[in-house]
């Protein structure tokens, strides 16, 4: 490695990080270095620019400004590096001293670069109008990191050889990690002081959530209460209610007079006092307050305001005395007869535990039950539907399923014909049963059996018929039929492809009117093209070559399952809510769909991992396909199926508790409602129930699984 070669690499890497390494033949290394340097710089600029859209928060940053900043940091760091290497050459070369020197150098960088050099760099790099202080340190650090990477890359390029890298990866990884940590901290807006400062506000709510059990029960307030009756207004000649008398066996109140005038409000809203009432009471708990409440003739109770004290201290003998004007109560003109009001004296006592569950607790329990059953039903139904699908998605079973080309062509025709006939039959049967609403399960099941069964029978019969028929035909006829059949078969997906292209791709850029014009043309064109391809394939297809039908089914089923599985159950929950409305049914649909796909995949992988030997053995006895599955495949996969189903049940009950967040019913629905209504104690109940259920389920399913294996 000549000096000039090394220099070339270093200079190249100075110009573009990673270029020197790539030039030396280490393409991957060069690429990583380039990627690390520029993604850090780019992310810094991008983040700063995004923040700049909210001007009061942040000063924006352009790439050129950051580049200038980085170049300056680069030069400063270079100078410091020179200093360091010059210095470290003069000190003794033992390990300890070298380490200490390096640490000292780092200290100098922190002490010198940031406070002294940093602001100067910012001054140069930033336009004067900008608010320099904001994010100054942050940008400085990022510039230093990028500059550090740049330096490291130049030194690396100097050392690099075509066959091996000299410096390892640690510098690149460490610097990139530091840069990403700083950026991440900035982007995620991690703010530790804020978290500490504002914790106190949270603790009360947290307490409600962590120990919400007071909300789980009903409490009765054991209050003391005494009531007096007063007539107001008091027209002449009226018969006022009798005055109460003190008693010994409980709380009492005596109000005098028992007939008087209401306070009123004048035009300016000022209160004009009515009759002054003298209120004496006794038999209350000494040393605690009583409250005075007013009840108007139609039974509304309220605390009177501005007419006298409403909270009075009770004396040591349990009595009190106070005065109050009759409050301003609006009596409608149409009110007839004497207007009798009530004055209550209330002394709240301790809350008494009644031993009954509160309404919310009952609601939460019920919703929990809904969730558990939702999870259970989804698992069961999903399991039942996933089993047949998983056989279609198992490569080892499907790869042996082959049909002759003629059989396929006849079969597809028969499939469509049989399916159509089955549909008609299903309609007829449904009408006989009184429609889908009358007997939903029966109609759905018979329809599925009719359509599926007749389609399959159609495939089988027509396929066989075609094969038999063709066996007697001259080769030219066979070829012609193969060509026509394949052309027709491929024309359908071709048309769909054309349509999809027009609606999916063209419509992205073109105005709708133009797309509408092109759409049918495109459809016919692609369909025709596909038909021509079909003609050619049909012409060239050797008579004896089988069509790997199983492989095709396998690919399609796998694809669908992967797509369904990769969409989260919460998203399926949204679909379910739109489909069947709010409630547990929507959640059930969501979980079931996801379960079918997830279990289908797991099941089919279990099938793919079985021993092929027993399958061959059973086939050798003359067993048919279904028998082979029942005798050679099922016994082998059943333990796996059970374990996976239990595992899925676990997941589904967990998921069912949150599917309610999007309206899928169950406990999650209740939880999100309570959170929105700021009822944290009730929300806490829901959280506890979920936690308890999940823990119990973990325990139970782990136990069952242990017993199975």
């Amino acid at each position, binding site marked *: 490695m000549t000096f000039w070669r090394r220099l070339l690499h270093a200079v190249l890497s100075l110009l573009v990080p990673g270029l020197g390494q790539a030039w030396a033949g280490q393409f991957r290394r060069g690429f990583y270095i380039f990627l690390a340097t520029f993604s850090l710089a780019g992310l810094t600029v991008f983040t700063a620019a995004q923040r700049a859209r909210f001007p009061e928060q942040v000063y924006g940053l352009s790439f050129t400004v950051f580049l200038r900043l980085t170049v300056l940091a680069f030069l400063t760091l270079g100078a410091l590096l020179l200093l360091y290497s010059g210095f470290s050459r003069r000190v003794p070369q033992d390990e300890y001293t070298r380490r200490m020197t390096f640490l000292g150098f780092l200290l100098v960088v922190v002490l010198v670069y940031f406070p002294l050099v940093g602001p100067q760099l910012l001054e140069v790099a930033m336009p004067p109008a900008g608010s320099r202080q904001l994010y100054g340190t942050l940008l400085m650090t990022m510039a230093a990191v990028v500059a550090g990477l740049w330096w490291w890359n130049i030194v690396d390029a100097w050392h690099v050889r075509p066959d091996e890298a000299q410096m390892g990866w640690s510098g690149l990884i460490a610097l990139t990690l530091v840069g990403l940590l700083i950026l991440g901290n900035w982007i995620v807006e991690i703010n530790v002081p804020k978290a500490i400062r504002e914790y106190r506000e949270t603790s009360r709510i947290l307490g409600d959530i962590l120990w919400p059990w007071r909300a789980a029960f009903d409490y009765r307030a054991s209050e003391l209460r005494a009531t007096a009756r007063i007539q107001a207004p008091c027209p002449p000649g009226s018969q006022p209610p009798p005055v109460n008398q003190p008693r010994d066996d409980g709380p009492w109140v005596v109000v005098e007079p028992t007939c008087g005038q209401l306070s009123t409000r004048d035009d300016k809203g000022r209160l004009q006092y009515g009759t002054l009432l003298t209120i004496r009471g006794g038999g209350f708990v000494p040393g605690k307050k009583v409250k005075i409440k007013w009840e108007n003739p139609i039974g509304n109770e309220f605390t009177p305001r501005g007419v006298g004290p409403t909270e009075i201290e009770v004396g040591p003998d349990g009595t009190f005395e106070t005065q109050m004007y009759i409050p301003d109560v609006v009596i409608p003109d149409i009110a007839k007869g004497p207007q009798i009001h009530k004055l209550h004296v209330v002394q709240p006592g301790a809350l008494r535990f009644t031993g009954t569950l509160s309404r919310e607790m009952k609601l939460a329990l019920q919703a929990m039950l809904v969730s558990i059953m939702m999870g259970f039903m989804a698992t069961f139904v999903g399991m039942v539907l996933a089993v047949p699908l998983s056989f279609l998605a198992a490569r080892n079973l499907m790869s042996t399923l082959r049909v002759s080309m003629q059989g396929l062509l006849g079969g597809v025709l028969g499939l469509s014909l049989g399916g159509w006939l089955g549909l008609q039959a299903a309609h007829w049967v449904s009408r006989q049963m009184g429609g889908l609403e009358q007997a939903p399960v029966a109609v759905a099941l018979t329809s599925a059996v009719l359509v599926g069964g007749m389609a399959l029978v159609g495939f089988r019969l027509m396929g066989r018929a075609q094969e038999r028929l063709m066996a007697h035909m001259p080769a030219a006829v066979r070829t012609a039929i193969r060509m026509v059949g394949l052309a027709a078969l491929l024309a359908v997906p071709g048309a769909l492809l054309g349509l999809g292209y027009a609606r999916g791709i063209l419509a992205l850029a073109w105005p709708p009117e133009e797309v509408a014009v092109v759409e049918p043309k495109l459809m016919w064109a692609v369909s025709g093209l596909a038909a021509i391809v079909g003609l050619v394939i049909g012409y060239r297809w050797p008579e004896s070559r089988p069509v790997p039908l199983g492989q095709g089914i396998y690919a399609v089923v796998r694809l669908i399952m992967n797509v369904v599985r990769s969409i989260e159950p919460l998203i399926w929950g949204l679909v379910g809510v739109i489909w069947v409305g709010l409630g547990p049914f929507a959640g059930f649909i969501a979980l079931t769909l996801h379960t079918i796909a997830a279990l289908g995949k797991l099941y089919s992988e279990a099938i793919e991992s079985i*021993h092929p*030997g*027993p399958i*061959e*053995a*059973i*086939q*050798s*006895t*003359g*067993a*048919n396909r*279904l*028998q082979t599955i*029942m*005798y*050679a495949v099922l*016994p*082998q996969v*059943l*333990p796996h199926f059970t374990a996976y189903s239990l595992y899925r049940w676990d997941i589904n009950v967990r998921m069912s508790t949150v599917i309610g967040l999007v309206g899928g019913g169950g406990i999650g629905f209740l939880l999100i409602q309570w959170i929105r209504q700021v009822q944290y104690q009730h929300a806490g109940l829901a959280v506890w129930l979920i936690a308890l259920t999940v823990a119990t389920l973990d325990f139970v399913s782990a136990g069952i699984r242990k017993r199975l294996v």
Partner: protein
Amino acid sequence: MLKVEHLTKVYDNGTVALRDVSFTVEEGEFLVVIGLSGSGKSTLLRCINRLVEPTEGRIVWNDVDITALDEAGLRRVRREIGFIFQEFNLVERISVLQNVLSGRLGYVNPWWSLMYYFPPEERQRALEALETVGLREKAHVRASDLSGGQKQRVAIARALMQEPKLILADEPVASLDPVLAHSIMGYLERLNREQGVTVICSLHYLDLVQRYATRVIGLREGRLVYEGTREDIRRLSDEEFKRIYGEEAQRLGG
């Protein structure tokens, strides 16, 4: 009579396992196939009941062209051909009796069998088959709990259920010790002698070949390289045997 004509098998990965192999097996023969590991013995046996699809050539059994059969026809032929594997290939998680009964799948009503139901007379037949191989008392044990020799006897009982006219045995004793080997070969011999079942069997050990075979064919790299009668084999010295077979040939008794 089984006629193999110009049989060639090329696997999907391009391996040519059989090249233009032709021979004939008369009714009631005990034909032993010898050859090095990888010479195509398994492929040959599997082609006969089409566990492996032949690439070229015909296999005609009692005037039926097996290679030309459709699925239903193939099943009807297969149920009369027992296949014994080196690794037994029992279904481990079900009972011995169920394993034996599964040999009857080609005969019974398929719909009943899908629900694991077999008529009483079939169960009786299965118990008798187990009796034949001396495992009557193991009928309700899980197949995975048996020893190697017992598993192979169950596999033979399963083949007996097929009322086979032909038995294909692919190194049936290669995973067993010498004493067990003789006992297993004994069952095959008795079937061959007493019931006239044709047996085609691939073997490793010269003394087993000499003891049981009525005729021998040798394969090397997929080609038929040796054909000999009972007398030919008896006269075969160890050296000649090794020439056909290769260095790994050995005598069972040592």
